[in-house]
């Protein structure tokens, strides 16, 4: 019988939640990775390896890997460096496995690759030459934290094609494996002055429909947006949502018109509005939205969910999952129609990914 595993990255290590195909009863194991802060943990379906991107205040950034579904772990940062140019690598975050390699986004801006299952790394691109790149490592131009590449979206069938998010700048696409990039932000809104209309957008999360690689959705700092041409142009689809702000997003595996988001209060709180926990779903590509909250707390629930905090599996009736910045994990075995709290007391959660393994 297949196992459903949730890989949960937290501020105090990686945890694994396990269930069977019914996804009703869950067990928790961990913490793994020696309690290092984990920003994103993923499962590579081709190799069966689990990877967890980490950054320790004491010991720097690295990627943990486990070849036995979390029983044992090794850490490597060999090659994860902006050697020689004085730029510090402070964090590695968004991981993705595709086409026989592992990709990692880093702060300062960098896309790294590993072709030996996370043992060694090399710098693929710093997106040098893109509009604004001359200042994005300038300390005076930094937002709170550090500018970087939080996520990389690979094309599923074209190995040299991918999209990278640069924080506060927007989406960039390469079709030649990082040798050149093109901004893909046309149609996005910015509620602040732009020096160059091609860049300066705050993209939080980018997802692609598995059924149609031209269909993309993004949760932005100021609105939800859809693209029907693989990011060449965007239309806003925020109407019907309680706020324009949020981080997490997920695309339905069997319906190209369906897409999930978790709107948050855009102020300092960045929690679900009015203390009412909910995931919102569109089934018509953003023309309308429906609140999914059965089984979620309806009051006094000031929950935050970060960029990688929601995941969906690809079973016949997809399961949807999200983890909060206060350590709860909620699961739905019926594509969001009803929910259960399956972990309550984990450390602050950065990421949730799902894997179905035999």
């Amino acid at each position: 019988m297949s196992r459903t595993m949730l890989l949960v990255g937290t501020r105090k290590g990686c945890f694994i939640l396990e269930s069977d195909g019914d996804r009703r009863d869950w067990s928790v194991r961990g913490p793994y990775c020696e309690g290092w802060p984990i920003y994103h943990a993923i499962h590579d379906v081709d190799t069966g390896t689990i990877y967890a991107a980490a950054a320790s205040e004491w010991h720097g950034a690295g990627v943990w890997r486990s070849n036995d579904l979390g029983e044992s772990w090794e850490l490597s940062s060999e090659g994860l460096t902006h050697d020689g140019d004085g730029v510090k690598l402070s964090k590695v975050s968004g991981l993705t496995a595709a086409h026989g390699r592992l990709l990692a986004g880093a702060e300062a801006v960098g896309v790294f690759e590993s072709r030996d299952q996370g043992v060694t790394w090399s710098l693929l691109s710093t997106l040098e030459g893109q509009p604004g790149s001359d200042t994005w490592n300038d300390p005076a131009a930094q937002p709170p934290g550090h500018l970087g590449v939080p996520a990389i979206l690979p094309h599923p069938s074209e190995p040299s094609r991918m999209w990278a998010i640069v924080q506060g700048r927007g989406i960039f696409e390469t079709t030649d494996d990082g040798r050149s990039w093109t901004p893909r932000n046309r149609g996005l809104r910015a509620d602040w002055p732009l020096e160059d209309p091609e860049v300066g957008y705050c993209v939080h999360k980018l997802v692609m429909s598995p059924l149609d690689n031209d269909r993309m959705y993004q949760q932005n700092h100021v609105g939800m947006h859809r693209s029907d041409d693989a990011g060449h142009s965007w239309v806003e689809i925020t109407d019907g949502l309680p706020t324009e702000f949020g981080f997490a997003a997920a695309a339905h595996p069997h319906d190209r018109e369906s897409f999930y988001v978790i709107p948050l209060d855009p102020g300092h709180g960045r929690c679900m509005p009015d203390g009412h926990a909910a995931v919102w779903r569109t089934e018509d590509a953003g023309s309308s939205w429906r609140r999914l909250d059965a089984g979620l707390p309806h009051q006094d629930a000031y929950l935050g969910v970060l960029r990688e905090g929601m995941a969906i599996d690809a079973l016949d009736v997809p399961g949807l999952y999200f983890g909060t910045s206060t350590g709860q994990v909620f699961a739905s075995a019926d594509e969001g129609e009803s929910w259960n709290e399956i972990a309550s007391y984990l450390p602050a959660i950065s990421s949730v990914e799902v894997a179905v393994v035999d």
Partner: protein
Amino acid sequence: MADLHLPPTLPRIFPDLPRRLDVDAATVDEAIDRLEERWPGLRDRLCEPGPVLRRHINVFVEGERASLDTALEQGSRVDVVAAISGG
């Protein structure tokens, strides 16, 4: 030989690394080289490009704050300390 003392976070990453060991080195930097030879990857846990010690890693030689260039004598006590930070 210098008398090297390491923080408890390191043996949890590097199997068989003791908290205390003798190393034959003329500077702190060389002491870290000796560790790297036996436990590959360890230098990156203590240093960043420059090279310099990581911001939250402190090294003391005979109780005095040290840098990578600090010289070691026969029998010098070297304490590598992870900063008291976090929560």
